[in-house]
């Protein structure tokens, strides 16, 4: 009922033709920025980093097991997040990369997480690596783990977190991403607990964001939503972040991976 009212007021305030034009033009904008994505450049750099020896053990990440066996990259991203017996927990891409940095390369958790999100001056190692690994799953169906009890538990926790209102502004993820037809400013908000919306989103992250001309990862996406929700900061790779990413990915499962994408 509330939506019907909003639409009525909106239509009265702005001529329908104008509103339609604005929508068409924004779609055109999004189509044009997607034609050639600098995301490809990050994947190239990520491949160099993947093969570069680093850490106290001076080894590359090439033997990192992303779920399909050591060093298998093809299709690995499309099967994440998933349960990893060696770590006895569910991990998303970045959490697993971090695991490989500490176990294979012998780096400390503190050092490896010092700079997980890049800025205008310098992208982060995680961003380059995510671009590379994700690009190796292009065209493959997103099939995160859903059978192990810990995978199911992660989905459930993620779902509860998605709808949990808290913090200074009483927001949950669903405050913005829970009702169809909603926009923040001119940006359409996908209803992320529904497969019809989640599929495209999941198939295009991680992504190059033109608003700051940086490559951004899924952990960053979750982190920055919580920032805008006026919440404290989620810890990188924590169970809560992995659970939320698991919930979103399982909701969007089945779509062929089309990223790394380009976002507003």
């Amino acid at each position, binding site marked *: 009922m509330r939506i019907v009212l909003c639409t009525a007021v909106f239509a009265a305030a702005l001529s329908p033709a104008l509103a339609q034009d604005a929508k068409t033009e924004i779609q055109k904008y999004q189509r044009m920025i997607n034609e050639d994505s600098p995301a490809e450049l990050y994947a190239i750099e990520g491949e160099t980093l993947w093969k570069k020896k680093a850490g106290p053990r001076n080894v590359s990440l090439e033997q990192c097991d992303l779920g399909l066996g050591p060093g298998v990259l093809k299709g690995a991203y499309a099967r994440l997040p998933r349960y990893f017996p060696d770590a006895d927990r569910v991990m998303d891409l970045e959490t697993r990369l971090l695991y490989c940095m500490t176990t294979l390369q012998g780096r400390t958790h503190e050092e490896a997480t010092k700079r997980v999100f890049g800025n205008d001056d310098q992208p982060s190692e995680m961003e380059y690596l995510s671009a590379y690994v994700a690009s190796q799953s292009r065209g493959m169906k997103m099939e995160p783990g859903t059978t192990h009890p810990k995978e199911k*538990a992660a989905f459930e926790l993620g779902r509860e*977190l998605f709808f949990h209102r808290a913090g*200074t*502004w009483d927001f949950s993820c669903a405050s913005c991403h829970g009702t169809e037809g909603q926009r923040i*400013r001119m940006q359409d908000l996908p209803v992320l607990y529904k497969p019809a919306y989640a599929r495209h989103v999941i198939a295009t992250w991680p992504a190059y964001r033109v608003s700051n001309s940086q490559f951004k990862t899924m952990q960053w996406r979750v982190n920055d939503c919580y920032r805008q929700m006026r919440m404290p900061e989620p810890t990188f790779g924590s169970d809560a972040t992995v659970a939320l990413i698991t919930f979103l990915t399982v909701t969007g499962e089945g779509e062929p991976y089309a990223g790394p994408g380009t976002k507003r």
Partner: protein
Amino acid sequence: MRRHIVAAAAASLVACASTLPIGERPTATADEQDRITAVLKRDFHDRGPAKVSRVELDAVQRTCNLHADNPPASVAEPLEKAQLATIKFPSDGRLLGDWKNGEKIAQSGRGSMWSDKPGQPAGGGCYNCHQLSPMEASFGNVGPSLYRFGKLRGDGPDVQKYVYGKIYNAKAYNLCSQMPRLGYAGTLTEQQIKDVTALLLDPASPVNQ
């Protein structure tokens, strides 16, 4: 408690196909909410002004989480009344400030985030969710359009009080509104709320042209 049932089913019935409740909106009992709060306390950390203590739930949040934002009137009304009592109206009795400053506050999405620099004025982020001045074409629709609000409703004392109160604490009027409690939460100051009230009600404001 669906989670526990699913987990138990998975453990005992290995042959059973996995069916996760995709696309369904859950409600959260008091126990479940406490468990989520414990997870947030464990997995989130302080950063700048955004402290972990923010994850503690108050009665409004608990009730809205329990009822998926749709509590029965018998539950909502006493809580709304309590929220109404939190509103601090200006001691000088003047509720209308400067609409020009109000427009700046409505445009700004800053405030209460860990990325905000201390001392910088906060904004209300109004355009994120509402249409206001017709000059701004980029506005959201999570909330209703407020274009011509004053023209349609007048700017009498009751309307002024309602608008000031709604910005100060939206939950006093609709318990599970998605609108933040901008005054109660400490995001906007008394003067800022006056300015935004003027943006909505001042006949000279672009909102009412």
